[in-house]
C-alpha cells in the first residue's frame, strides 16, 4: 500500500490510466467531497494538516489530468516508453469542449480559465455569487475583453479572486497575466 506522496495522480483519484474526462471529473468531485472540511468520512481520522495536504494533492492531480496537454506530458513522465496520444477533453455536459491551444496554455488566458471552470462544472453565476465579482467582469476575463475591466491593482484583485474560486494559485495566475501584458506591450 503506497503512501500518499508515492501515489500517482491516477492512484490518488482512484482512476485507471485510460480514464475518460468525465471519469476524471467525477473522481475529482468525489475526492473533494471526501476531504472537504466537515466531511463525515474523515471524522477523527484525518487531521487538518493532512486534509490541507491531500486537498492540495487532489487539486494538483485534477489540474494535471483534466488538461489534455498536461496529462499527455504527465503520462509520458510515468511511462516514457509509451507515446500516448493526448486524450480528448470534455465538459460536464458531455459536449466536446474547445481545448486550449498550445500558445494559449498560459494560466491567465481567458480560454484556459473558461476551460477549467467548465471542467469543474461551475457556472459564472455560481462563481459570481461565491466571490461577489460581477458576472460582467468574469465574462470579460474569459473573453479577454480587458477594456471592460477596471485597470491596475483592482484588475489583479478580480483576476486573483476568480483564480482562487477555481482553486488555481492566484499569485501564479496574476503573475502570468502581468507577464503577458508586459510582453504584448513591447
Amino acid at each position: 500500500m503506497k503512501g500518499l506522496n508515492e501515489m500517482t495522480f491516477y492512484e490518488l483519484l482512484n482512476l485507471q490510466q485510460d480514464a475518460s474526462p468525465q471519469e476524471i471529473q467525477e473522481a475529482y468531485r468525489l475526492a473533494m467531497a471526501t476531504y472537504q472540511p466537515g466531511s463525515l468520512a474523515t471524522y477523527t481520522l484525518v487531521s487538518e494538516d493532512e486534509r490541507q495536504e491531500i486537498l492540495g494533492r487532489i487539486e494538483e492531480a485534477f489540474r494535471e489530468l483534466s488538461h489534455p496537454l498536461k496529462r499527455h506530458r504527465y503520462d509520458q513522465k510515468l511511462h516514457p516508453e509509451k507515446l500516448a496520444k493526448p486524450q480528448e477533453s470534455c465538459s460536464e455536459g458531455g459536449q466536446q469542449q474547445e481545448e486550449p491551444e498550445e500558445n494559449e496554455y498560459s494560466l491567465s488566458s481567458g480560454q484556459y480559465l473558461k476551460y477549467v471552470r467548465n471542467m469543474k462544472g461551475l457556472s459564472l453565476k455560481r462563481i459570481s455569487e461565491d466571490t461577489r465579482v460581477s458576472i460582467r467582469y468574469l465574462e470579460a476575463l474569459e473573453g479577454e475583453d480587458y477594456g471592460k475591466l477596471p485597470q491596475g491593482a483592482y484588475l489583479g484583485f478580480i483576476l486573483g479572486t476568480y483564480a482562487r474560486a477555481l482553486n488555481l494559485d492566484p499569485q501564479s495566475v496574476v503573475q502570468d497575466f502581468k507577464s503577458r501584458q508586459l510582453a504584448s506591450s513591447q
Partner: protein
Amino acid sequence: MISNLAEGAKSPRRIWSVGGGKGGTGKTFIAANLGLLLSENHLRVNMIDADLGAPNLHTFLGVRKPHLTLGDFIYKKGGTLAEVMSDTCRPGLKLAAGSNQHLYMANLRYFQKLKLLRHIKKLNHGHTIIDTGGGIYFNGLDFFPISDLGVLVINPDPASIENAYQFLRSVTLRILKFSVREHEIDALIKRTVEGRHRVPKSIQGLLELVHSEDPNSAELLVEALAKIRPCLIINKARREDDALLGKSIVDVVRKYLAIDLRFVGVVPYDGKVDLSLKNLTPYVSAHPNSRATYALRVVADRLLSFESVCRLN
C-alpha cells in the same frame, strides 16, 4: 494459538464475521437477515451468536427461547457445537444461540474462546455467519482472523464512523500481531516502536517504521495486510448520498489506514424493523418486497460473488 486455527482449512464452507465498533448499528439485524436470505437460496447456513455479553440473534430470527445455547457448549466437556444448534423458521438455517444464563459468558477465558473458535471451523457445511457484537474487545475481534469475510456494519453518523475506524485499526493490528508472532518479528516491532519513543499514528506509519529497520520484515507485514479486505455495509441509511459516503470511507481507509476496505452496499432505514422485532418475525420474511430487503439481497449477492475470498489471518 488463534493464528494456528486458520491452517489446514480445506472444506468448502465459508465463514463470515459481522461486526463493527459501535453498538446499535444493526449488526445483528444484518447478520440474521443475511442468513435468512442465504438459506432462501437453499444454502446451508449456521448462525453463531458470538455477542457473548448481549446475545439476541435468536430474537431477530424469531426463535423465542432456544433450547440449548453456546453456554451449554462452552461449559460442557466433550460436546460439539453442532449439538447446540437449534432449528429456526427456515430449513437449513441453524442457530447456536448466545446464553443469558451463564454468568461468565461475556468474559470467556482464553482456552474457552479457543474451543469455540476451533469448533466453528469444524462446522463444515455451507456458510457460517458469526454475529460478533460491538466493541473492540479481543473476544469479539478474534473471530475475524478465522473468517473468510469480515463484514463491518456502520451507520452514517460521526459516532459510528469514528468507532468503525477504531475497530478497523484494532482488528488489523490484532491480525498483524499474529503475523508478527508467526514470522518472529515481534521483538523488532517492540524495539522499533519503543526505540522511536512514539507509537505510530497509523498502520502506514507502523509499516514505515518497520521498513526503516528491516525492509524484509516490512514486506512480510505488507503481505499480511494485503490479505485483510473487510467489507463495509452502511445500515440505516436515510439519504441518497449515503452511498457516496461509503465510497469516501473506502478511500479514506485506503489512504490513511492502508486497509483495502470493500464497500458492499447501503441498507436503507425502515421503521418496520422494530415492529417485526416486537412481533418476533424475521424482517425479510415479514417484508419480502421492501427497499431494505431488496438492498439486503444485493448485499448478499455481492458478498457471495467475491471471487477471491480472503482468509483473514
